[in-house]
Structure formats: structure tokens, C-alpha cells
């Protein structure tokens, strides 16, 4: 294992590095010993239709555990890694297996449907799920710590950017589940408020790869942009087929009908292939191209540890942050008891690869820094927009949405 330097740690009230055992009493010593082989569950679908992202998440989580174990923090994590294979029914079975072994902290899940599948188990066992992926919001379980972006940290910034720079006529294509439905609702609200229009919403089963009809419809409609909420292999195929279809008609797809996504990450750019990799917009709190010392350190360690890939991504960083925040919470609490960890967690600050990250005590979502990137031919993102500071999570869009849903276009007829 290469020598790794942990992130810079800050703590509002406590030092984050535990005192040596010789300096504490017997009780503290017992607690300290209890933190030496702490079982942590990792639940990632490293096979299946979204395996690429999930493998990068697993890598981020594994890297963090190794760094923590070498950091002198006084904690040793022993990850138990289980793979549901992208099969929804496997998530609850495997989560139950982890929780029945008295594991109290599990890092994992990518899709919202998988998260919702396992939450009742975490509530039953009084355990904590550390959910390290961006999602559509409208949830705040007391048994979940959300380290990925809330909708006001990635969906709304992208919608604002698209409407300001690309026009008001949207065409939505997505995987048929809550992630796409809710993102499209948010888009529709914003577009309607500006007298724009959503030309169509097309949904496909997760894993679907035949988009010929939808692509024909898009080219026919000529929207200002395509708002893409397809995930995994579906998304990669869409990018390739859409670029090919546009090229055949002499359309400069990236310039004339850009595709924008809230989930596109670097490992996926590689999967799309070099022929269609460039010119896509993505909204995220992390891109590999962020040039901070913490990110350069993270990337170096990640690439050394996982030379076979997949490369780092926003979800890998969120997983990495989740494990580090868990470690800081456990170290500060002196126990892995979930309530105590949550109490201490809100006082921890992490100098994460994306910048400062900390947990909001009201919602247990993370303060994160929104950014928008445009993909280039090197399968990386060039930053085109960046928030000045970490943004407070607003999972219910209490501070970022209209009181009422957007009004539909009234159907009027001439009466005289």
C-alpha cells in the first residue's frame, strides 16, 4: 500500500486525533480498543448496469478506510464489502446480512430506489446508512447521512445555467424512476417560470439501449438542450447514438443541441468512448479537474491504489468523504454508537478533495460546492461555473422553490 497522507482535519470543539491509550483512563482504553477493528459495511453494486460508478464509489470508500487506518486517528476500519449486483431485491437482503452481524455503519447505495429499499432495515436496527451519492432530495431519514449533492446543489444550478446560456426549450430523456421524474419536475418548474417549454419527457427502463425513436424526435423538435437523466449503460449508448445521428445530419450536436446531466462523471466519459465524449454539460460538486492541494493528493493516492480504474468521480469522492466523516465522528464520540456519532459529526469539518465539507445539523446532508463542467476529448471536465463557497443543503427545496407548483399553460380559445 502506498504511503498516504490523510485529508487535513478540523474540529470545532474537539481535536480530531484521539489521544494515545496511555493518556486515558481504563474506560477510555476499552473504548479505544473497541475502535481498533471496527466493522463497516460497504454496499456497492460493482457489477450490473451502473457498475462503473459503483466501482468508483467502492474505490473511494476503500481508499478512505486505508488512509484512516494509517492516519493515527486511533481507529481501524475493517470494511465488509457486499455486491448487490444492481439487483434491487439484493440490497435489502445484503443490508440485513450486514446489520445482523451488528455492523452499525454501512456506506453504500447509488440509486434512490436501492436507498429506499434498505432504509427500513436501518431504522429497525438503529444503524446508520452513509449514502454517498447525489440524489433528488425530498428525504431526511434520521438513519441516513447524505454526503452527496442535494437538488439545490446540482439540479438547480444546472437548470439555471442551461436557461441562462442555452435557451428555454428543453427535451427530457431519462431512466424510468424517481431520479428522472423528480429532476424533470424541477426543470419543468424553472422552465415554466420563464415562459419556456418542456417539449417532451421520454422515459426508458434502466439498462435500455435503443433510443432511435427518441433521438429522431429530438432532432425533429430541435430543443435548446437535452436534459438527460438516463443512468449507466443507457446513458453511454444515448450519448454515442445521439452524436452519430446528429453528425449524419450535419448537426454540430455539442454546440447546437447540447446534452446536460446531473450525474455524468469521468469514468462514464471513458465508457462513452472518444467519438462522443466531448461537449456534454454536467453539474456536480466534484470534478477531477479541481486544482486544490487536497484534490491533487486524493487523485494521486487514488490512481496509485486503483491503477486499473475506474477513475475517480463525484460519487467516489462522496464515498471517500463519507468514510472520513464517519471516522471523525467515531473518533470524536469515542464509540461507534450511531446517536453519539451523529452528535459529534455535526462538529466535524473535512478538507475534502472538492473543498470544505461539513454536515448540516438540521438535515444531515452535507454542505458542498456546486460546479458545472463541460466534457473535453480527454474524458475530463473543464469547469465553466463554480459556487464561491459551500452551499447549505436544501433537500426539500424549502429555500429554493416556489410555494406553489408551476401553473400549466392555460388552454384558451377565442370567444368573440
Amino acid at each position: 500500500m502506498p504511503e498516504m497522507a490523510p485529508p487535513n482535519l478540523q474540529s470545532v470543539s474537539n481535536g480530531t486525533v484521539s489521544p494515545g491509550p496511555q493518556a486515558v483512563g481504563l474506560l477510555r482504553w476499552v473504548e479505544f480498543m473497541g475502535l481498533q477493528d471496527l466493522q463497516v459495511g460497504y454496499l456497492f453494486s460493482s457489477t450490473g448496469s451502473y457498475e462503473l460508478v459503483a466501482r468508483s464509489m467502492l474505490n473511494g470508500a476503500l481508499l478512505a478506510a486505508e488512509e484512516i487506518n494509517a492516519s493515527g486517528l486511533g481507529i481501524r476500519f475493517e470494511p465488509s464489502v457486499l455486491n448487490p449486483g444492481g439487483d434491487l431485491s439484493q440490497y435489502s437482503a445484503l443490508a440485513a446480512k450486514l446489520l445482523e452481524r451488528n455492523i452499525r455503519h454501512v456506506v453504500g447505495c447509488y440509486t434512490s430506489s436501492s436507498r429506499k429499499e434498505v432504509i427500513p432495515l436501518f431504522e429497525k436496527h438503529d444503524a446508520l446508512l452513509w449514502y454517498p451519492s447525489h440524489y433528488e432530495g425530498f428525504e431526511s431519514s434520521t438513519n441516513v447521512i447524505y454526503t452527496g449533492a442535494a437538488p439545490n446543489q446540482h439540479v438547480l444550478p444546472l437548470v439555471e445555467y442551461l436557461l441562462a446560456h442555452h435557451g428555454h426549450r428543453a427535451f427530457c430523456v431519462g431512466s424510468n424512476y424517481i431520479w428522472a421524474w423528480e429532476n424533470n419536475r424541477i426543470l419543468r418548474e424553472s422552465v415554466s417560470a420563464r415562459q419556456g417549454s418542456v417539449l417532451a419527457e421520454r422515459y426508458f427502463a434502466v439498462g435500455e439501449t435503443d433510443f432511435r425513436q427518441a433521438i429522431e424526435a429530438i432532432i425533429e423538435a430541435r430543443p435548446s438542450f437535452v436534459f438527460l437523466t438516463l443512468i449507466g449503460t443507457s446513458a453511454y449508448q444515448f450519448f454515442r447514438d445521439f452524436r452519430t445521428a446528429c453528425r449524419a445530419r450535419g448537426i454540430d450536436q455539442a454546440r447546437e443541441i447540447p446534452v446536460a446531466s446531473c450525474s455524468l462523471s469521468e469514468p462514464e466519459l471513458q465508457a462513452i468512448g472518444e467519438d462522443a465524449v466531448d461537449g456534454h454539460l454536467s453539474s456536480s460538486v466534484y470534478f477531477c479537474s479541481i486544482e486544490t492541494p487536497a484534490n491533487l493528493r486524493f487523485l494521486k493516492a487514488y490512481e496509485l491504489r486503483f491503477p486499473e480504474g475506474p477513475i475517480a468521480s463525484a460519487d467516489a469522492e462522496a464515498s471517500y468523504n463519507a468514510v472520513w466523516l464517519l471516522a471523525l465522528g467515531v473518533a470524536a464520540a469515542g464509540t461507534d454508537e450511531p446517536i453519539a456519532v451523529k452528535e459529534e459529526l455535526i462538529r466535524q469539518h473535512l478538507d475534502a478533495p472538492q473543498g470544505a465539507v461539513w454536515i448540516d445539523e438540521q438535515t444531515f446532508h452535507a454542505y458542498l460546492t456546486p460546479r458545472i463542467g463541460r466534457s473535453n476529448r480527454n474524458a475530463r471536465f473543464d469547469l465553466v461555473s463554480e459556487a464561491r463557497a459551500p452551499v447549505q443543503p436544501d433537500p426539500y427545496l424549502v429555500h429554493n422553490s416556489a410555494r406553489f407548483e408551476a401553473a400549466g399553460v392555460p388552454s384558451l380559445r377565442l370567444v368573440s
Partner: protein
Amino acid sequence: MTEPRLLQNFSGGRAIVVTDRASSLDVLTTALDRLGVTTNPVDIVGSIAAIDLATLQPDRSIVFIDGDISDGAVLPLSTIGRLPPAPVIGLLGVSAPSRLKALMKAGATSFLRKPVHVAAVYPALFVGVNEYRHRRHLERLLEDQERRRRSRRDVVKAIIRTMSEYGIDDDEAYDLLRRRSMRTRQTLEDLCKDLARSSDRQEDGECVLRRKLAD
């Protein structure tokens, strides 16, 4: 009358909680706080009778009533729709028919099972408040229909007089009145009432009618 838009963001709302177990409200008040709904200590009361009705706002207040309380007090309900002055969400302990009936009679449009689960609060608010708004809309429609029903006599009068004045049949008379009401941005019933009263007041009622219906 336009169907009300769905309320989706409850920020700025005010919760009034009727319960005799104020100590067990942590989950509810924390969840409401996350949604931007404030619960002031003075708004946690032990009886419906203790609610200051003058401060209730149908668009901002949300009343949570513990179904396990039975003090005989009730919120005043509207005549037609039997609606309380603000949306009511029932807190269900015992799910027996008598308790459910009591909460329904209090105007509850959704329920939260006790102990309250944090994930259930937003859906309960969403359904309860929007169902209340929908029922209020239906109540206004009913009131409007009732008002129109009471105006039938004036409409009949106006049609007969128009037929007589212009020598046209009832369909043409109705059409003339309807077009006039749209031009003057009045309901047909209001126009007819106006015409009927003007005609009743003046001996040369037919001239008044012609003048009022003139383009």
C-alpha cells in the same frame, strides 16, 4: 374558477399542535422545522378550545390534532363544506373507528400515525394541505352555483323581456344576453339581475333594456 395550484413548499407555515403529550413532539417539530414550518411553544396547546381562532390563516396555519384527546371542543366548520378555518392533520394513536370519526369530524384531511415517523411528515402535509385547498375550492364552486341557482328568476325574466323587446326566440335572447355579459365581464346572472332591477324600477323598462343590451 381556476383549480388551485398544488402547494409544495410549506416554508413560512405555522403549526398549531393540540396534544396533552407535548413532551413527545420532538420528531414532529424537528421534521416541521426542516420543512420551514415553525412550531412556537405557545402554539402547542392541550385543547382545541385553547386555539386562538383569530390567528388562524387558511393559507399559512396547519393544525395538528391528537386523536387521543377527547375534550368535546371542536373547531368551527363552514356551512357547506364542513371545513375548519385551517387545514387539520390528525395524529393517530388509537386507530379505532370512534377516534377516526372524531378526527374526520374535526375536518382532518390527512393523518400521521403516532409515534410520528420523520419521513411521513412531508407526505402528510402535502396531502392534508392540498386536499384542504381542493375542498375549499369545491366549496367556493358550490357557493357560486348556489348563488347562480338563486338568480334563476332574474335570468328567466331577462330572457322573456329580451324576447319580447327584440321579437326573437328564447335561444337568440339567451345568446344576446350571454354575449353582452361576456363583453361587460359580468356573469350572466349578475347582468340579468341588473336588467331585471332596472326594468322593475322604471316604467319605460323596455327602453332601458335596449340601451343596456346595445353594442
